[in-house]
Protein backbone atom coordinates (compact mmCIF):
# COMPACT_ATOMS: atom_id res chain seq x y z
CA UNK A 1 0.00 0.00 0.00
CA UNK A 2 1.23 3.48 -0.83
CA UNK A 3 0.89 6.09 1.89
CA UNK A 4 0.09 9.70 1.11
CA UNK A 5 -0.31 12.58 3.53
CA UNK A 6 -2.42 15.70 3.07
CA UNK A 7 -0.26 18.78 2.79
CA UNK A 8 0.00 21.57 5.31
CA UNK A 9 -2.05 24.64 4.48
CA UNK A 10 -0.75 28.17 4.01
CA UNK A 11 -0.25 30.10 7.27
CA UNK A 12 2.60 32.07 8.80
CA UNK A 13 5.93 31.27 7.19
CA UNK A 14 4.39 28.75 4.83
CA UNK A 15 7.51 28.14 2.79
CA UNK A 16 9.58 27.29 5.86
CA UNK A 17 6.89 24.95 7.14
CA UNK A 18 6.53 23.38 3.70
CA UNK A 19 10.29 22.85 3.53
CA UNK A 20 10.48 21.14 6.93
CA UNK A 21 7.42 19.01 6.26
CA UNK A 22 8.64 17.93 2.83
CA UNK A 23 12.04 17.00 4.20
CA UNK A 24 10.45 14.82 6.86
CA UNK A 25 8.03 13.16 4.44
CA UNK A 26 10.92 12.21 2.18
CA UNK A 27 13.25 11.18 5.00
CA UNK A 28 10.55 8.86 6.34
CA UNK A 29 10.00 7.27 2.95
CA UNK A 30 6.36 8.25 2.66
CA UNK A 31 5.07 8.06 -0.88
CA UNK A 32 3.01 11.09 -1.68
CA UNK A 33 1.85 14.49 -0.50
CA UNK A 34 -1.76 15.46 -1.32
CA UNK A 35 -2.24 19.20 -1.92
CA UNK A 36 -5.91 20.03 -1.65
CA UNK A 37 -7.81 22.10 0.91
CA UNK A 38 -6.76 25.58 1.89
CA UNK A 39 -4.71 26.36 -1.22
CA UNK A 40 -6.08 28.96 -3.66
CA UNK A 41 -3.35 27.90 -6.09
CA UNK A 42 -2.29 24.31 -5.37
CA UNK A 43 -0.04 24.14 -8.43
CA UNK A 44 2.07 26.93 -6.91
CA UNK A 45 2.55 24.82 -3.79
CA UNK A 46 3.48 21.82 -5.92
CA UNK A 47 5.99 23.88 -7.86
CA UNK A 48 7.63 24.97 -4.62
CA UNK A 49 7.89 21.31 -3.65
CA UNK A 50 9.81 20.67 -6.85
CA UNK A 51 12.68 22.60 -5.27
CA UNK A 52 12.25 20.97 -1.87
CA UNK A 53 11.94 17.27 -2.80
CA UNK A 54 13.49 14.72 -5.10
CA UNK A 55 11.56 11.48 -4.60
CA UNK A 56 8.17 12.34 -3.12
CA UNK A 57 5.20 12.13 -5.46
CA UNK A 58 3.17 15.32 -5.40
CA UNK A 59 -0.57 15.16 -5.95
CA UNK A 60 -2.46 18.35 -6.77
CA UNK A 61 -6.23 18.52 -6.56
CA UNK A 62 -7.48 21.16 -8.94
CA UNK A 63 -11.03 22.35 -9.21
CA UNK A 64 -12.11 21.91 -12.82
CA UNK A 65 -14.93 23.12 -15.01
CA UNK A 66 -15.19 26.82 -14.17
CA UNK A 67 -12.15 28.32 -15.91
CA UNK A 68 -10.89 27.01 -19.25
CA UNK A 69 -9.49 23.49 -18.77
CA UNK A 70 -6.44 24.38 -20.85
CA UNK A 71 -5.15 26.47 -17.92
CA UNK A 72 -5.28 23.38 -15.67
CA UNK A 73 -3.51 21.29 -18.30
CA UNK A 74 -0.79 23.92 -18.75
CA UNK A 75 -0.12 24.30 -15.04
CA UNK A 76 -0.14 20.55 -14.49
CA UNK A 77 2.34 20.01 -17.32
CA UNK A 78 4.60 22.81 -16.09
CA UNK A 79 4.63 21.36 -12.59
CA UNK A 80 5.21 17.80 -13.83
CA UNK A 81 8.24 19.02 -15.79
CA UNK A 82 9.51 20.84 -12.72
CA UNK A 83 8.96 17.70 -10.61
CA UNK A 84 10.66 15.55 -13.28
CA UNK A 85 7.61 13.35 -13.62
CA UNK A 86 6.34 13.07 -10.04
CA UNK A 87 2.95 14.74 -10.38
CA UNK A 88 -0.38 13.05 -9.76
CA UNK A 89 -3.25 15.18 -11.02
CA UNK A 90 -6.51 15.16 -9.11
CA UNK A 91 -9.54 16.78 -10.72
CA UNK A 92 -12.61 17.77 -8.72
CA UNK A 93 -15.77 19.38 -10.12
CA UNK A 94 -15.63 23.10 -9.35
CA UNK A 95 -18.43 24.47 -7.20
CA UNK A 96 -21.60 25.03 -9.18
CA UNK A 97 -20.37 23.11 -12.22
CA UNK A 98 -22.53 20.30 -13.60
CA UNK A 99 -21.04 16.85 -14.00
CA UNK A 100 -21.64 17.18 -17.74
CA UNK A 101 -19.51 20.33 -17.89
CA UNK A 102 -16.91 18.70 -15.64
CA UNK A 103 -16.77 15.68 -17.98
CA UNK A 104 -16.07 17.95 -20.97
CA UNK A 105 -13.32 19.65 -19.02
CA UNK A 106 -11.79 16.28 -18.10
CA UNK A 107 -11.75 15.31 -21.76
CA UNK A 108 -9.93 18.52 -22.66
CA UNK A 109 -7.34 18.02 -19.91
CA UNK A 110 -6.76 14.44 -21.05
CA UNK A 111 -6.40 15.51 -24.68
CA UNK A 112 -4.10 18.36 -23.71
CA UNK A 113 -1.90 16.00 -21.70
CA UNK A 114 -1.25 13.74 -24.69
CA UNK A 115 1.84 14.36 -26.83
CA UNK A 116 -0.09 15.23 -29.98
CA UNK A 117 -2.19 18.15 -31.26
CA UNK A 118 -5.89 17.88 -30.65
CA UNK A 119 -9.20 19.58 -31.24
CA UNK A 120 -12.36 19.43 -29.20
CA UNK A 121 -15.94 20.46 -29.88
CA UNK A 122 -18.27 20.40 -26.92
CA UNK A 123 -21.21 22.25 -25.49
CA UNK A 124 -19.06 24.37 -23.18
CA UNK A 125 -15.71 24.62 -24.94
CA UNK A 126 -14.41 24.43 -28.49
CA UNK A 127 -10.68 24.02 -28.96
CA UNK A 128 -9.40 25.79 -30.94
CA UNK A 129 -12.16 28.37 -30.81
CA UNK A 130 -12.37 29.13 -34.52
CA UNK A 131 -13.13 32.78 -33.72
CA UNK A 132 -13.84 34.69 -36.94
CA UNK A 133 -11.60 37.67 -36.06
CA UNK A 134 -8.61 35.40 -35.43
CA UNK A 135 -7.39 35.03 -38.97
CA UNK A 136 -3.62 34.80 -39.02
CA UNK A 137 -1.84 31.47 -38.74
CA UNK A 138 -4.54 29.92 -36.64
CA UNK A 139 -4.49 26.19 -36.16
CA UNK A 140 -7.00 23.38 -36.68
CA UNK A 141 -5.52 21.52 -33.76
CA UNK A 142 -3.54 22.84 -30.82
CA UNK A 143 -0.76 21.33 -28.82
CA UNK A 144 -0.46 22.25 -25.17
CA UNK A 145 3.25 22.58 -24.67
CA UNK A 146 5.08 21.61 -22.66
CA UNK A 147 3.19 18.43 -22.06
CA UNK A 148 3.74 16.50 -18.86
CA UNK A 149 7.14 14.93 -18.36
CA UNK A 150 5.41 11.59 -17.79
CA UNK A 151 4.26 9.69 -20.86
CA UNK A 152 0.92 9.19 -19.13
CA UNK A 153 0.07 11.60 -16.36
CA UNK A 154 -1.70 9.81 -13.50
CA UNK A 155 -5.08 11.53 -13.41
CA UNK A 156 -7.58 10.78 -10.67
CA UNK A 157 -11.05 12.19 -10.40
CA UNK A 158 -11.92 13.29 -6.90
CA UNK A 159 -15.24 12.49 -5.25
CA UNK A 160 -17.60 9.55 -5.54
CA UNK A 161 -19.93 11.54 -7.82
CA UNK A 162 -17.33 11.32 -10.58
CA UNK A 163 -17.29 7.50 -10.76
CA UNK A 164 -19.31 7.22 -13.98
CA UNK A 165 -17.14 9.81 -15.70
CA UNK A 166 -14.00 8.08 -14.41
CA UNK A 167 -15.09 4.59 -15.39
CA UNK A 168 -15.88 5.61 -18.97
CA UNK A 169 -12.38 7.08 -19.28
CA UNK A 170 -10.42 4.50 -17.33
CA UNK A 171 -9.42 6.92 -14.58
CA UNK A 172 -9.08 6.27 -10.86
CA UNK A 173 -11.44 7.83 -8.35
CA UNK A 174 -10.10 9.21 -5.09
CA UNK A 175 -12.96 8.94 -2.63
CA UNK A 176 -13.34 11.58 -0.01
CA UNK A 177 -13.54 10.92 3.67
CA UNK A 178 -17.33 11.06 4.01
CA UNK A 179 -17.92 8.78 1.03
CA UNK A 180 -18.20 5.04 0.63
CA UNK A 181 -15.31 3.93 -1.54
CA UNK A 182 -16.49 0.35 -1.59
CA UNK A 183 -19.57 1.46 -3.52
CA UNK A 184 -17.38 3.48 -5.85
CA UNK A 185 -15.21 0.51 -6.79
CA UNK A 186 -18.15 -1.83 -7.02
CA UNK A 187 -19.76 0.60 -9.50
CA UNK A 188 -16.48 0.97 -11.34
CA UNK A 189 -16.03 -2.79 -11.56
CA UNK A 190 -19.49 -3.19 -13.01
CA UNK A 191 -18.50 -0.80 -15.83
CA UNK A 192 -15.15 -2.41 -16.53
CA UNK A 193 -13.70 -5.10 -14.27
CA UNK A 194 -10.38 -5.16 -16.12
CA UNK A 195 -9.91 -1.41 -15.83
CA UNK A 196 -10.92 -1.42 -12.16
CA UNK A 197 -8.34 -4.14 -11.57
CA UNK A 198 -5.59 -2.12 -13.23
CA UNK A 199 -6.12 1.27 -11.59
CA UNK A 200 -4.96 2.75 -8.28
CA UNK A 201 -7.60 2.87 -5.55
CA UNK A 202 -7.06 5.96 -3.40
CA UNK A 203 -9.07 6.95 -0.35
CA UNK A 204 -8.78 10.01 1.83
CA UNK A 205 -8.97 8.93 5.46
CA UNK A 206 -8.82 11.12 8.56
CA UNK A 207 -5.95 10.28 10.88
CA UNK A 208 -7.51 9.13 14.17
CA UNK A 209 -5.94 11.00 17.06
CA UNK A 210 -5.90 10.09 20.72
CA UNK A 211 -6.31 12.68 23.45
CA UNK A 212 -2.92 14.37 23.60
CA UNK A 213 -2.52 14.51 19.84
CA UNK A 214 -0.97 11.08 19.31
CA UNK A 215 -1.95 9.05 16.31
CA UNK A 216 -4.14 6.04 17.10
CA UNK A 217 -2.03 3.76 14.93
CA UNK A 218 -4.03 0.63 15.84
CA UNK A 219 -7.31 2.15 14.73
CA UNK A 220 -5.74 3.48 11.52
CA UNK A 221 -4.16 0.13 10.65
CA UNK A 222 -7.48 -1.63 11.27
CA UNK A 223 -9.35 0.81 9.04
CA UNK A 224 -6.85 0.64 6.21
CA UNK A 225 -6.37 -3.12 6.38
CA UNK A 226 -10.12 -3.66 6.33
CA UNK A 227 -10.46 -1.41 3.27
CA UNK A 228 -7.55 -3.15 1.58
CA UNK A 229 -9.22 -6.53 1.99
CA UNK A 230 -12.79 -5.45 1.24
CA UNK A 231 -12.37 -3.33 -1.89
CA UNK A 232 -8.66 -3.12 -2.65
CA UNK A 233 -7.53 0.21 -1.17
CA UNK A 234 -3.95 0.68 -2.31
CA UNK A 235 -3.25 4.40 -1.83
CA UNK A 236 -4.18 5.73 1.60
CA UNK A 237 -4.37 9.54 1.71
CA UNK A 238 -4.06 10.19 5.42
CA UNK A 239 -5.54 13.49 6.45
CA UNK A 240 -3.79 14.84 9.54
CA UNK A 241 -5.78 17.63 11.19
CA UNK A 242 -4.39 21.08 10.47
CA UNK A 243 -5.05 22.16 14.06
CA UNK A 244 -2.24 20.12 15.62
CA UNK A 245 1.18 21.66 16.15
CA UNK A 246 4.18 21.06 13.93
CA UNK A 247 5.90 18.77 16.48
CA UNK A 248 2.66 16.79 16.89
CA UNK A 249 2.38 16.44 13.11
CA UNK A 250 5.99 15.28 12.92
CA UNK A 251 5.26 12.64 15.58
CA UNK A 252 2.22 11.48 13.59
CA UNK A 253 4.33 11.19 10.44
CA UNK A 254 6.95 9.11 12.24
CA UNK A 255 4.26 6.86 13.68
CA UNK A 256 2.74 6.39 10.22
CA UNK A 257 6.17 5.56 8.78
CA UNK A 258 7.12 3.11 11.52
CA UNK A 259 3.92 1.73 13.00
CA UNK A 260 1.36 1.92 10.18
CA UNK A 261 3.02 1.61 6.78
CA UNK A 262 5.07 -1.57 7.43
CA UNK A 263 1.99 -3.40 8.66
CA UNK A 264 0.12 -2.82 5.40
CA UNK A 265 2.62 -3.99 2.81
CA UNK A 266 1.79 -7.70 2.87
CA UNK A 267 -1.48 -9.61 2.93
CA UNK A 268 -0.55 -10.84 6.38
CA UNK A 269 2.48 -10.66 8.59
CA UNK A 270 4.22 -13.62 10.19
CA UNK A 271 3.07 -14.28 13.76
CA UNK A 272 5.13 -12.33 16.26
CA UNK A 273 6.43 -9.65 13.93
CA UNK A 274 3.94 -6.99 14.95
CA UNK A 275 4.61 -7.72 18.62
CA UNK A 276 8.33 -7.44 17.90
CA UNK A 277 7.80 -4.02 16.39
CA UNK A 278 5.62 -2.97 19.30
CA UNK A 279 8.34 -3.93 21.73
CA UNK A 280 11.34 -2.55 19.89
CA UNK A 281 10.27 0.56 18.02
CA UNK A 282 10.65 3.90 19.84
CA UNK A 283 7.56 4.97 21.73
CA UNK A 284 5.49 7.61 20.01
Amino acid at each position, binding site marked *: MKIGITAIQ*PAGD*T*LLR*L*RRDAELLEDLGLDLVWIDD*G*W*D*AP*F*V*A*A*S*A*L*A*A*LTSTLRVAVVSDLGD*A*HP*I*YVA*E*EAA*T*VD*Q*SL*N*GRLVLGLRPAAGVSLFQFAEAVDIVLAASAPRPFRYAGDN*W*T*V*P*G*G*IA*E*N*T*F*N*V*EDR*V*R*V*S*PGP*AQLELPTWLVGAATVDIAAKRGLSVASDQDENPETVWHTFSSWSPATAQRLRRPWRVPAPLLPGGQLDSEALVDTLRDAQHRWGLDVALIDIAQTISEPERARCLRTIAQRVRPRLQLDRLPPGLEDHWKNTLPTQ
Partner: protein
Amino acid sequence: MDIGVALWTMQSTASAPASLPRLYARLREDATHVEALGFHSLWFAEHRFWYDGWCPAPMVAAAAVAAGTTRLRLATGMLLLPQRDPVRLARTVATLDHLSGGRVDLGVGLGHRDAEFDGLGISRAHRGARMDEALDVVLGLWKGEAYHHEGTHFTVQDQSLTTLPVQQPHPPIWIGGMADPAISRGVRRGLSFLLPQTLYPDEIRAFIDRIHTEAGSLGIAPGRVGILKDAWVGSDGDAARERMLPRIATHYREEAGSWWVLKGAQHGFDAPEQLDRQLRRITQTPLIGDPDEVRTQLEELRDTGVDLVTLRFNFDVTRSESTNAAQQFAEHVLPAFTTVGAR
Protein backbone atom coordinates in the same frame (compact mmCIF):
# COMPACT_ATOMS: atom_id res chain seq x y z
CA MET B 1 19.19 51.31 -10.71
CA ASP B 2 17.92 47.76 -10.34
CA ILE B 3 19.50 45.21 -12.67
CA GLY B 4 17.64 41.98 -13.35
CA VAL B 5 18.32 39.03 -15.63
CA ALA B 6 16.14 37.55 -18.37
CA LEU B 7 14.45 35.57 -19.87
CA TRP B 8 13.69 32.17 -18.51
CA THR B 9 11.22 30.36 -20.77
CA MET B 10 12.33 26.71 -20.56
CA GLN B 11 12.30 26.21 -24.33
CA SER B 12 13.81 23.25 -26.12
CA THR B 13 14.32 24.80 -29.54
CA ALA B 14 15.56 23.32 -32.79
CA SER B 15 18.80 25.29 -32.43
CA ALA B 16 19.26 24.51 -28.73
CA PRO B 17 17.49 21.25 -27.92
CA ALA B 18 17.38 20.38 -24.24
CA SER B 19 15.68 18.09 -21.78
CA LEU B 20 12.71 19.97 -20.35
CA PRO B 21 13.00 18.57 -16.81
CA ARG B 22 16.65 19.55 -16.92
CA LEU B 23 15.71 23.09 -17.98
CA TYR B 24 13.41 23.37 -14.97
CA ALA B 25 16.13 22.04 -12.70
CA ARG B 26 18.54 24.49 -14.33
CA LEU B 27 16.10 27.32 -13.64
CA ARG B 28 16.40 26.62 -9.92
CA GLU B 29 20.20 26.44 -10.08
CA ASP B 30 20.41 29.59 -12.20
CA ALA B 31 18.20 31.46 -9.75
CA THR B 32 20.39 30.55 -6.79
CA HIS B 33 23.44 31.59 -8.80
CA VAL B 34 22.13 34.98 -9.95
CA GLU B 35 20.86 35.78 -6.48
CA ALA B 36 24.30 35.07 -5.01
CA LEU B 37 25.81 37.33 -7.70
CA GLY B 38 23.61 40.19 -6.52
CA PHE B 39 21.08 40.62 -9.30
CA HIS B 40 17.75 42.21 -8.40
CA SER B 41 15.32 39.95 -10.23
CA LEU B 42 14.84 36.99 -12.54
CA TRP B 43 12.35 37.46 -15.38
CA PHE B 44 10.17 34.93 -17.12
CA ALA B 45 8.19 35.25 -20.34
CA GLU B 46 5.04 33.49 -21.52
CA HIS B 47 3.73 31.99 -24.71
CA ARG B 48 1.62 28.97 -25.42
CA PHE B 49 0.81 26.38 -28.08
CA TRP B 50 4.31 26.39 -29.56
CA TYR B 51 6.57 23.51 -30.55
CA ASP B 52 9.36 24.02 -28.06
CA GLY B 53 7.65 23.91 -24.67
CA TRP B 54 7.75 27.65 -24.04
CA CYS B 55 6.38 27.79 -20.51
CA PRO B 56 2.73 28.98 -20.51
CA ALA B 57 2.56 29.22 -16.70
CA PRO B 58 5.59 31.24 -15.58
CA MET B 59 4.21 32.28 -12.20
CA VAL B 60 3.71 28.62 -11.35
CA ALA B 61 7.27 27.79 -12.49
CA ALA B 62 8.54 30.71 -10.40
CA ALA B 63 7.41 29.06 -7.16
CA ALA B 64 10.30 26.62 -7.45
CA VAL B 65 12.64 29.60 -7.61
CA ALA B 66 10.99 31.13 -4.55
CA ALA B 67 11.77 28.00 -2.58
CA GLY B 68 15.48 28.19 -3.37
CA THR B 69 16.09 31.91 -2.91
CA THR B 70 15.47 34.57 -0.28
CA ARG B 71 15.99 37.95 -1.91
CA LEU B 72 15.74 37.56 -5.69
CA ARG B 73 12.55 39.05 -7.11
CA LEU B 74 10.44 36.90 -9.43
CA ALA B 75 9.07 38.76 -12.40
CA THR B 76 7.34 38.33 -15.75
CA GLY B 77 8.21 40.20 -18.88
CA MET B 78 5.52 39.56 -20.07
CA LEU B 79 2.66 37.49 -18.76
CA LEU B 80 -0.13 37.59 -21.36
CA LEU B 81 -2.98 38.83 -19.19
CA PRO B 82 -5.71 39.05 -21.88
CA GLN B 83 -5.24 35.30 -22.44
CA ARG B 84 -5.78 34.50 -18.77
CA ASP B 85 -8.58 33.97 -16.32
CA PRO B 86 -8.00 36.91 -13.95
CA VAL B 87 -9.49 35.18 -10.91
CA ARG B 88 -7.21 32.19 -11.37
CA LEU B 89 -4.24 34.48 -11.98
CA ALA B 90 -5.00 36.63 -8.92
CA ARG B 91 -4.93 33.48 -6.78
CA THR B 92 -1.72 32.22 -8.36
CA VAL B 93 0.19 35.47 -7.96
CA ALA B 94 -1.11 36.05 -4.42
CA THR B 95 -0.04 32.56 -3.36
CA LEU B 96 3.37 33.02 -4.97
CA ASP B 97 3.78 36.41 -3.29
CA HIS B 98 2.85 34.84 0.04
CA LEU B 99 5.27 31.92 -0.37
CA SER B 100 8.11 34.15 -1.56
CA GLY B 101 7.70 36.68 1.23
CA GLY B 102 6.59 39.43 -1.13
CA ARG B 103 8.99 39.12 -4.08
CA VAL B 104 6.69 39.11 -7.10
CA ASP B 105 6.70 41.66 -9.92
CA LEU B 106 3.93 41.09 -12.45
CA GLY B 107 4.73 42.33 -15.93
CA VAL B 108 1.70 42.08 -18.24
CA GLY B 109 1.50 42.30 -22.01
CA LEU B 110 -1.28 42.12 -24.58
CA GLY B 111 0.00 39.16 -26.57
CA HIS B 112 -0.06 39.13 -30.36
CA ARG B 113 -0.49 35.65 -31.81
CA ASP B 114 -3.94 34.87 -33.16
CA ALA B 115 -3.29 31.15 -32.59
CA GLU B 116 -2.80 31.63 -28.85
CA PHE B 117 -6.03 33.55 -28.43
CA ASP B 118 -7.93 31.17 -30.68
CA GLY B 119 -6.71 28.11 -28.81
CA LEU B 120 -8.39 29.51 -25.73
CA GLY B 121 -11.55 30.58 -27.55
CA ILE B 122 -10.75 34.30 -27.23
CA SER B 123 -10.87 36.96 -29.92
CA ARG B 124 -7.54 38.75 -30.25
CA ALA B 125 -9.50 41.87 -31.16
CA HIS B 126 -10.70 42.03 -27.55
CA ARG B 127 -7.24 41.93 -25.98
CA GLY B 128 -7.18 45.59 -24.94
CA ALA B 129 -10.58 45.48 -23.32
CA ARG B 130 -9.77 42.15 -21.67
CA MET B 131 -6.53 43.61 -20.33
CA ASP B 132 -8.39 46.52 -18.73
CA GLU B 133 -11.04 44.34 -17.15
CA ALA B 134 -8.57 41.73 -16.01
CA LEU B 135 -6.42 44.36 -14.29
CA ASP B 136 -9.46 45.62 -12.40
CA VAL B 137 -10.42 42.07 -11.36
CA VAL B 138 -6.92 41.18 -10.19
CA LEU B 139 -6.45 44.44 -8.29
CA GLY B 140 -9.94 44.12 -6.83
CA LEU B 141 -9.40 40.60 -5.56
CA TRP B 142 -6.04 41.50 -4.06
CA LYS B 143 -7.74 44.04 -1.79
CA GLY B 144 -8.90 41.09 0.27
CA GLU B 145 -12.62 41.60 0.56
CA ALA B 146 -15.37 39.82 -1.33
CA TYR B 147 -15.17 41.12 -4.88
CA HIS B 148 -17.94 41.41 -7.41
CA HIS B 149 -17.53 42.32 -11.06
CA GLU B 150 -19.87 42.23 -14.00
CA GLY B 151 -18.12 43.20 -17.18
CA THR B 152 -18.15 42.48 -20.87
CA HIS B 153 -15.53 39.75 -20.64
CA PHE B 154 -15.48 38.58 -17.02
CA THR B 155 -18.05 38.02 -14.32
CA VAL B 156 -16.95 37.55 -10.72
CA GLN B 157 -19.56 36.66 -8.14
CA ASP B 158 -18.48 37.74 -4.65
CA GLN B 159 -15.19 35.92 -4.67
CA SER B 160 -12.45 36.40 -2.14
CA LEU B 161 -8.97 34.99 -1.77
CA THR B 162 -7.91 32.73 1.06
CA THR B 163 -4.27 33.78 0.66
CA LEU B 164 -3.50 37.44 0.02
CA PRO B 165 -0.34 38.95 -1.41
CA VAL B 166 2.25 40.10 1.10
CA GLN B 167 3.13 43.28 -0.77
CA GLN B 168 0.91 46.27 -0.11
CA PRO B 169 -1.07 47.75 -1.64
CA HIS B 170 -0.30 44.97 -4.16
CA PRO B 171 2.61 43.37 -6.03
CA PRO B 172 4.08 45.82 -8.54
CA ILE B 173 2.50 45.58 -11.96
CA TRP B 174 4.50 46.55 -15.05
CA ILE B 175 2.61 47.34 -18.26
CA GLY B 176 4.26 46.25 -21.48
CA GLY B 177 3.06 48.58 -24.19
CA MET B 178 3.64 52.08 -25.45
CA ALA B 179 0.48 53.00 -27.33
CA ASP B 180 -1.87 55.61 -25.89
CA PRO B 181 -4.32 53.03 -24.49
CA ALA B 182 -1.44 51.29 -22.69
CA ILE B 183 -0.26 54.58 -21.21
CA SER B 184 -3.76 55.45 -20.06
CA ARG B 185 -4.29 51.95 -18.63
CA GLY B 186 -1.08 52.05 -16.64
CA VAL B 187 -1.00 55.66 -15.49
CA ARG B 188 -4.54 55.87 -14.20
CA ARG B 189 -3.95 52.80 -12.05
CA GLY B 190 -0.56 54.02 -10.82
CA LEU B 191 1.26 51.14 -12.49
CA SER B 192 4.80 50.91 -13.83
CA PHE B 193 5.98 50.29 -17.39
CA LEU B 194 8.48 47.84 -18.87
CA LEU B 195 9.72 48.95 -22.26
CA PRO B 196 10.76 46.69 -25.15
CA GLN B 197 14.41 46.12 -25.94
CA THR B 198 14.56 47.91 -29.29
CA LEU B 199 14.19 51.49 -28.09
CA TYR B 200 16.88 54.14 -28.42
CA PRO B 201 17.54 56.58 -25.54
CA ASP B 202 15.72 59.49 -27.15
CA GLU B 203 12.64 57.30 -27.64
CA ILE B 204 12.79 56.23 -24.00
CA ARG B 205 12.96 59.86 -22.89
CA ALA B 206 10.01 60.75 -25.07
CA PHE B 207 7.97 57.89 -23.61
CA ILE B 208 8.80 58.87 -20.03
CA ASP B 209 7.73 62.43 -20.84
CA ARG B 210 4.40 61.10 -22.10
CA ILE B 211 3.96 59.12 -18.88
CA HIS B 212 4.68 62.14 -16.72
CA THR B 213 2.36 64.35 -18.77
CA GLU B 214 -0.46 61.85 -18.49
CA ALA B 215 0.18 61.31 -14.77
CA GLY B 216 0.33 65.04 -14.15
CA SER B 217 -2.97 65.60 -15.92
CA LEU B 218 -4.60 63.02 -13.66
CA GLY B 219 -2.87 64.13 -10.46
CA ILE B 220 -1.43 60.64 -9.98
CA ALA B 221 2.17 59.83 -9.09
CA PRO B 222 3.77 58.00 -12.03
CA GLY B 223 5.07 54.49 -11.53
CA ARG B 224 8.52 53.25 -12.42
CA VAL B 225 9.86 52.74 -15.92
CA GLY B 226 12.08 49.81 -16.72
CA ILE B 227 13.39 48.27 -19.90
CA LEU B 228 14.28 44.83 -21.17
CA LYS B 229 17.60 44.79 -23.03
CA ASP B 230 19.32 42.06 -25.00
CA ALA B 231 22.81 42.07 -23.58
CA TRP B 232 26.19 40.39 -23.57
CA VAL B 233 29.58 41.33 -22.15
CA GLY B 234 33.03 40.07 -23.12
CA SER B 235 36.58 41.18 -22.52
CA ASP B 236 36.80 42.11 -26.23
CA GLY B 237 33.79 44.14 -27.32
CA ASP B 238 34.19 43.52 -31.05
CA ALA B 239 34.52 39.80 -30.50
CA ALA B 240 31.44 39.83 -28.26
CA ARG B 241 29.41 41.61 -30.94
CA GLU B 242 30.70 39.35 -33.68
CA ARG B 243 29.80 36.30 -31.65
CA MET B 244 26.43 37.29 -30.23
CA LEU B 245 24.68 39.56 -32.72
CA PRO B 246 24.19 36.83 -35.33
CA ARG B 247 22.90 34.48 -32.64
CA ILE B 248 20.46 37.09 -31.37
CA ALA B 249 19.31 37.78 -34.92
CA THR B 250 18.77 34.08 -35.61
CA HIS B 251 16.87 33.65 -32.37
CA TYR B 252 14.44 36.47 -33.11
CA ARG B 253 14.14 35.54 -36.77
CA GLU B 254 12.64 32.18 -35.89
CA GLU B 255 10.02 33.82 -33.70
CA ALA B 256 9.34 36.74 -35.99
CA GLY B 257 9.29 34.66 -39.15
CA SER B 258 6.84 32.20 -37.62
CA TRP B 259 4.59 34.60 -35.78
CA TRP B 260 4.73 38.17 -37.05
CA VAL B 261 2.17 39.71 -39.33
CA LEU B 262 4.00 42.16 -41.57
CA LYS B 263 2.68 45.02 -43.66
CA GLY B 264 0.24 43.79 -46.23
CA ALA B 265 -0.87 41.02 -43.89
CA GLN B 266 2.15 38.98 -44.83
CA HIS B 267 3.44 36.06 -42.85
CA GLY B 268 6.97 36.75 -41.65
CA PHE B 269 8.85 33.99 -43.48
CA ASP B 270 6.91 34.73 -46.67
CA ALA B 271 8.35 38.26 -46.84
CA PRO B 272 12.05 37.83 -46.03
CA GLU B 273 13.17 41.32 -47.05
CA GLN B 274 10.51 43.03 -45.02
CA LEU B 275 11.26 40.67 -42.15
CA ASP B 276 14.92 41.56 -42.25
CA ARG B 277 14.09 45.27 -42.23
CA GLN B 278 11.87 44.83 -39.18
CA LEU B 279 14.57 42.79 -37.46
CA ARG B 280 17.32 45.32 -38.12
CA ARG B 281 16.60 47.15 -34.91
CA ILE B 282 17.03 43.94 -32.96
CA THR B 283 20.73 43.88 -33.83
CA GLN B 284 21.24 47.62 -33.46
CA THR B 285 19.94 48.06 -29.95
CA PRO B 286 21.43 45.34 -27.71
CA LEU B 287 23.88 46.24 -24.97
CA ILE B 288 26.88 44.26 -26.19
CA GLY B 289 30.52 45.07 -25.70
CA ASP B 290 33.35 45.06 -23.22
CA PRO B 291 32.59 46.05 -19.63
CA ASP B 292 33.32 49.74 -20.20
CA GLU B 293 31.05 49.86 -23.23
CA VAL B 294 28.20 48.10 -21.47
CA ARG B 295 28.56 50.29 -18.38
CA THR B 296 28.43 53.40 -20.57
CA GLN B 297 25.31 52.15 -22.32
CA LEU B 298 23.64 51.39 -19.00
CA GLU B 299 24.55 54.84 -17.69
CA GLU B 300 22.95 56.28 -20.78
CA LEU B 301 19.81 54.30 -20.04
CA ARG B 302 19.82 55.46 -16.45
CA ASP B 303 20.10 59.06 -17.64
CA THR B 304 16.89 58.67 -19.63
CA GLY B 305 14.98 58.05 -16.40
CA VAL B 306 14.63 54.25 -16.34
CA ASP B 307 15.43 52.73 -12.98
CA LEU B 308 15.24 49.04 -13.86
CA VAL B 309 17.08 47.23 -16.63
CA THR B 310 16.58 43.55 -17.15
CA LEU B 311 19.48 42.08 -19.10
CA ARG B 312 18.44 39.37 -21.48
CA PHE B 313 21.38 37.04 -22.04
CA ASN B 314 19.62 33.71 -21.53
CA PHE B 315 19.21 33.04 -25.23
CA ASP B 316 19.92 29.82 -27.11
CA VAL B 317 23.24 29.64 -25.34
CA THR B 318 24.92 26.75 -23.61
CA ARG B 319 24.69 26.32 -19.88
CA SER B 320 28.26 27.40 -19.35
CA GLU B 321 27.84 30.42 -21.65
CA SER B 322 24.83 31.62 -19.69
CA THR B 323 26.48 31.02 -16.33
CA ASN B 324 29.62 32.77 -17.48
CA ALA B 325 27.64 35.72 -18.85
CA ALA B 326 25.94 36.20 -15.49
CA GLN B 327 29.34 36.07 -13.80
CA GLN B 328 30.82 38.62 -16.19
CA PHE B 329 27.95 41.05 -15.73
CA ALA B 330 28.10 40.65 -11.98
CA GLU B 331 31.83 41.25 -11.75
CA HIS B 332 32.35 43.99 -14.29
CA VAL B 333 29.06 45.84 -14.62
CA LEU B 334 26.74 45.36 -11.68
CA PRO B 335 28.82 47.13 -9.01
CA ALA B 336 28.55 50.42 -10.86
CA PHE B 337 24.77 50.45 -10.54
CA THR B 338 23.78 48.66 -7.41
CA THR B 339 24.93 47.84 -3.93
CA VAL B 340 25.01 44.08 -3.53
CA GLY B 341 22.98 43.01 -0.53
CA ALA B 342 21.47 46.45 -0.08
CA ARG B 343 17.95 45.04 -0.20
